[in-house]
């Protein structure tokens, strides 16, 4: 990778004041919020009309959902993660943010799994076409990690950075308030340090908290953040608190042991498009879409028609989709990536290489979700390591080529809702 994936100049919405430069690269001294006063912050957000979303325990995991107050936070809970395995476990303290990002990501709120993008209504013999312009929810995200800020910055480039702006994402993104929380621990699947996206929150937040036993060190990231804490009983942090915060952040950094060598990765992967290793991965890959669904940057979607029985009112529904689906990509109606190996190759090379060509950044933030939530635990950092070894050793490639078996043949026909050009 040729440039850092941590996007410093995050797109404007989070910082709509003119003086945001005060807060970037020139950290203000941290203030301190007592543990019990977090409730005041949340109440303030609610008074300001925000719907707070953040971590909570549900379905045996720490997920993101609407929060009514501090009591919804996963206080005293943490998680254990490894490739293909996640377990919710109790902590021996009362930390509220003592966990590593889990199965959900913030994209489900900015780019919902399902949304109506347009409608058509039959009017006489004609159709009236319109777009869906409902007011966007006003979210305050509480507990956004550094890698997740980077993921949001990447999706900003996808949805807002091109010639065509997605109005749905834009509305939600404009309204959102970001309260980040620095990681004080890491999981064995984390590799943010390799992707230069963490663990410490650098920019793109309104507030950034660092949790210590007695409360939170507070860093202000924007004018909006400053206004928010104005009414809160903040006081300057004392040196002991500052040291405790630094210790916690250092713990997280130390615990990030997984690494991915990104040097020259773009060219390396694109030179390995014909590698037999893709077949080897395909023996394990279920092509189930889990990695793409949990990925905080994956943005693939499909629009389908939802009509009432009379067919007079039609809604165009956009839903999350995945490049792992057989019928996702087609030429003349025929699947163009008709094997698991070609689909895994598409995903990995897009995420780590061609994303750079398209958006000027890597598509990976090193959060490790795709490793944890892949049932057979395929680890992209391991696959990259193998591909790098193969690139450096043609003999090894030849040896693999002889043993690689092809993936399973298709067994049923795909169904299409749209097709190629006529």
């Amino acid at each position: 990778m040729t440039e850092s994936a941590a996007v410093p100049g995050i797109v404007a919405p989070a910082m709509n004041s003119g003086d945001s430069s005060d807060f970037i690269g020139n950290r203000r001294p941290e203030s301190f919020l007592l543990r019990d006063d977090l409730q005041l912050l949340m109440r303030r957000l609610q008074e300001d009309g925000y719907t707070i979303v953040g971590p909570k325990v549900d379905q045996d995991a720490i997920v993101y959902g609407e929060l009514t107050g501090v009591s919804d936070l996963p206080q005293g809970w943490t998680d254990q993660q490894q490739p293909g395995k996640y377990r919710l476990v109790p902590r021996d303290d009362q930390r509220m943010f003592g966990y590593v990002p889990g199965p959900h990501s913030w994209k489900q709120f900015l780019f919902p799994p399902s949304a109506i993008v347009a409608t058509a209504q039959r009017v006489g013999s004609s159709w009236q076409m319109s777009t869906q312009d409902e007011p966007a929810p006003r979210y305050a995200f509480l507990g956004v990690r550094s890698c997740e800020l980077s993921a949001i910055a990447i999706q900003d480039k996808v949805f807002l950075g091109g010639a065509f702006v997605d109005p749905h994402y834009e509305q939600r993104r404009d309204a959102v308030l970001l309260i980040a929380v620095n990681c004080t621990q890491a999981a064995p699947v984390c590799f943010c340090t390799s992707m230069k996206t963490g663990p410490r929150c650098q920019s793109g937040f309104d507030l950034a908290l660092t949790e210590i036993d007695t409360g939170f060190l507070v860093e202000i990231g924007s004018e909006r953040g400053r206004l928010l804490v104005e009414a809160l009983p903040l006081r300057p942090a004392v040196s002991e608190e500052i040291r405790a915060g630094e210790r916690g952040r250092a713990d997280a950094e130390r615990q990030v042991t997984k690494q991915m060598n990104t040097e020259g990765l773009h060219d390396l992967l694109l030179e390995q498009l014909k590698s037999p290793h893709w077949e080897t991965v395909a023996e394990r890959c279920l092509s189930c879409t889990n990695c793409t669904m949990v990925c905080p940057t994956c943005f693939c979607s499909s629009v389908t028609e939802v009509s009432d029985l009379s067919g007079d009112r039609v809604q165009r529904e956009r839903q999350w989709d995945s490049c792992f689906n057989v019928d996702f990509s087609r030429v003349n109606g025929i699947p163009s990536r008709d094997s698991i190996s070609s689909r895994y190759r598409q995903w990995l090379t897009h995420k780590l290489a061609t994303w750079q060509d398209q958006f000027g950044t890597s598509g990976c933030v090193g959060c490790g979700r795709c490793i944890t939530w892949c049932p057979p635990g395929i680890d992209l950092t391991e696959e990259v390591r193998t591909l790098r070894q193969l690139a450096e050793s043609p003999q090894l490639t030849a040896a693999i080529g002889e043993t690689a078996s092809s993936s399973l043949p298709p067994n049923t026909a795909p169904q299409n809702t749209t097709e190629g050009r006529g």
Partner: protein
Amino acid sequence: MTHAPTRKPRLAVFKFASCDGCQLSLLDCEDELLTVAGLVEIAMFPEASSRMQPGPWDIALVEGSITTPHDAERIRQVRRDCTTVVTIGACATAGGIQSLRNWGQHEEFLRCVYARPEYISSLSTSTAIAEHIPVDYELRGCPVNRQQLLEVILALVAGRKPRLPAHSVCLDCKRKGTVCIEVSRGVPCLGPITQAGCGAICPSFDRGCYGCFGPALQANCGSLTNHFLDTGSAPKTLLPLLRNYNAAAPAFREQSDRLEQLAQAVSGKVDSAVE
């Protein structure tokens, strides 16, 4: 877009070896049933009406699997009589739960169950409709999803291909926000290799997917089975997971046969240890 039809398409429902549950899904479309009845002429639907009209028909909904020589002949007549044949449900699309007989001793079953087995004329296998005749569309599930059933009928009336998903259950779980119970709790779940369409119901109720919609397109069943075995599931506990409603679907069958061999190998070891 709907072209004004000169006459309503004639719909017929045929039943083979099955429990009738899938046909009932059509009757279960309470709110929509009247609309459907307005779009098609329900010419034969024994479960709903004793009024039966002779063929030919435009659309055939075929439920059930082929288990007797008579049915094997009857389905060929259905094909001749109908323009579009849609198989509905796991029995029709994969042989159903009754395909477990494919692994059993057919003659022995007959002797055990019937006082006069010589009067029984049945095949030793239960097979999918598509193994006997060309099928136009398959609706998976045990039972079928009624929304999908409606979609097929509406699409055929409108002269378009139905929109039926080919992706895995996992995608639907994620769209719903359901946390993967396989990863978070170690529950063996067939979601990654099972075709979507059910609405990913079971995992949202803390239950592993039991594959009632059959294998997804290009399902890598071998890898998932390996994963279950690697994470400590015994072959004999996994066997019933693959060998139920869609036991005879080739992708599932291949792995259940493999598990059976493994289970036998394990029990063989246990036996010799006991001795």
